């Protein structure tokens, strides 16, 4: 593949009940945001384990976004609290690995918060754009220029 303009690749794991619905809400309300995010739907954000997130970084993701229900509103009672605990630990691990912990972002987005979802996508894309490519993948299969 030839050289192309680098733009952040973001993988999003969204819970079905709140954040995924919030992303749908952004869609039905036509709230624009940049097309960096690739969304993978799971039933609960607590379905995501560290391996999946590390795999994403290893394979070339510049950021990973996890979206769950607001505290107290989890469809599965308290799955989002487990997610929070796991992500907090993983962020520290990422720092040790030389990956800026801001590349892993957890947000609570309700089914009604289309605007919050679209703003979060915009700010995350902007932030990662500033940071540049995922350092683990600078020498990966593709070459980029900034």
């Amino acid at each position: 593949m030839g050289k192309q303009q680098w733009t952040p690749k973001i993988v999003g794991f969204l819970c079905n009940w709140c954040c995924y619905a919030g992303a749908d809400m952004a869609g039905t309300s036509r709230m624009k945001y940049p097309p960096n995010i690739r969304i993978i739907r799971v039933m609960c954000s607590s379905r995501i384990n560290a391996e999946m997130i590390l795999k994403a970084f290893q394979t070339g993701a510049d950021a990973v976004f996890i979206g769950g229900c607001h505290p107290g509103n989890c469809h599965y009672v308290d799955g989002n609290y487990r997610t929070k605990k796991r992500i907090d630990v993983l962020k520290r691990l990422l720092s040790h690995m030389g990956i800026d912990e801001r590349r892993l972002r957890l947000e609570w987005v309700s089914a009604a918060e289309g605007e919050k979802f679209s703003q979060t996508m915009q700010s995350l894309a902007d932030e990662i754009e500033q940071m540049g490519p995922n350092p683990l993948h600078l020498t990966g299969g593709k070459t980029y220029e900034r």
Partner: protein
Amino acid sequence: MIKSDIAAHGLDRIVVAACSPRMHEPTFRAAVSDAGLNPYCLEMANIREQCSWVHEDKERATEKAVSLVKSAVAKASLLEPLESTKIPVTHSALVIGGGIAGIQSALDIANSGYKVYLVEREPSIGGHMAKFDKTFPTLDCAACILTPKMVDVARHPNIELLTYSEVERIDGSVGSFHVTVRERPRYVDMETCTGCGQCASACRLAGRILSDFDYGLAKRSAIYVPFPQAVPLKYTIDPDSCLMITRGKCGKSPSCVEACDRGAIDFEQVEKVHEFDVGAVVVATGYNEFQAKQRPEFGYDRFENVLTGLELERYFSPNGPTGGKLVINGKVPKSVVFVSCVGSRDKRVGNAYCSRVCCMYIAKQAHLIKEKLPDTDVTVMYTDMRAFGKGYEEFYERVQKEGVHYRRGNAAEVYEEDGRLHVRAEDTLLGEPYEVEADLVVLGTGLRPPSSADGIASMLHLSRSSDKFFLEAHPKLRPVDTVIDGVFLAGCAQGPKDIPDSVAQACGAASHVVNLLSKDHIDAEPIIAIVNEDGCVGCRTCEQLCPYEAHAFDEKRGVMTINKALCKGCGSCAAACPSGSISMNHFRDDQIVAQLLEVL
């Protein structure tokens, strides 16, 4: 189109790249299923709500759509047909609590043709409503509307009434709960007792034991019925006061035994344990009254003429301590002050919530005082008036016109001077302090979660909201369900309610129960977690994560098992399993990773 393509090309996995699966996944699953394919062999790529509708850069949006479709194809290739599990349903229900909510639920379920076990802790059903004189705002006599329902319960061929009993244990899950109930001994044989009451008149302690039903305002015998219309109308011996039980001796021989023609009294009686299976449970455990002594400034413990709302209710009642006359300590009050929000909307005592019924029961009681004693001054010190129900505002207006003084502001303190009570308060509309002399102060005490809630919560794994009332599955759309399938809520167990709301919720809970019991099987969603028993090392990490208690450790084999009826498919356990032995159907690790690799 999908159906004909499946037929024409022999397709076995389908990807629909269109709208959000939250929108039409059920539609496409049905279509796939109609075509003879397993409905779970479908995957959707959301290229509308999450792509074309939100991105302006057409080229990059198209690139994204392509990668989303690739990702869906990757997952589809790994999808497996899933079958829902059929869970058999036991066609009977348990109702815990025999107040108005439990009574209504039990009658509705029983009238639909299903067996109901109604368990009540007290010797009689009726709950708090049996203690009320009149109901607001229509002033219906509470007993007149409640007792026929109580009798219906007792006579109903489908209802098995277990009074003086408590639920001790509940195992199992939706469709088949196994229930253990412990019935305390009444020391009176239920079959032979006719409720004639000769034993109570003969009791050596007649008129010497404080009646709990009357909040200690009246006295009874050691053998008693809580109130004359009790259901079942069977006598009970109070084990804490009966001389035979506490001392093993009552005169030469117990006078109740002598008085009972039928020989119904049996001091040898012991606890009985009842065990049965039900398909669904209604929790209607009601409330406790706020303990007025927690607000010592109102002098509830110090002054005999400071009463709570429920105590005053007994004074109004024709079967209460004064036969319905408002005579407190031998005196007819000339001035009465009501203090609202005692134990409600008060963070100092840990109750931030509004108890919802106090404004209106105070209005009703103020009206009743004016009706009985027109020359008595009645003042209501209120925080805010909350007359929210049908006909409530109109009733509040009527009470004001009857001459009841409403003054806005919290009461600060009740003290005694020259033999009269003084209530000090602030009028928050005028912004000035004032005092009212009173012969009777009534505390508008609020509602607290029942003391039995802890036990019930842990038995059924129910969640509770921050106010400690039971938590409904959704505050707006699932107000009678709990997160535990097959367990429903009715009445004040879920939060403070007036009678119409309790009855409405009880009917709602009953209809959900009937809905469940009308099926022979429940189809359990197959998107659940599965344990690979060969890999499971029995570390039990997953067990603590499950909010539904779906995990049960098999001690013999040393492996975890997951109850298919209880698992809701969040996948939290699958993510945490250190040996990777839990696989989450339809969202397996390999499926998610396949999706991931395609989008990067």
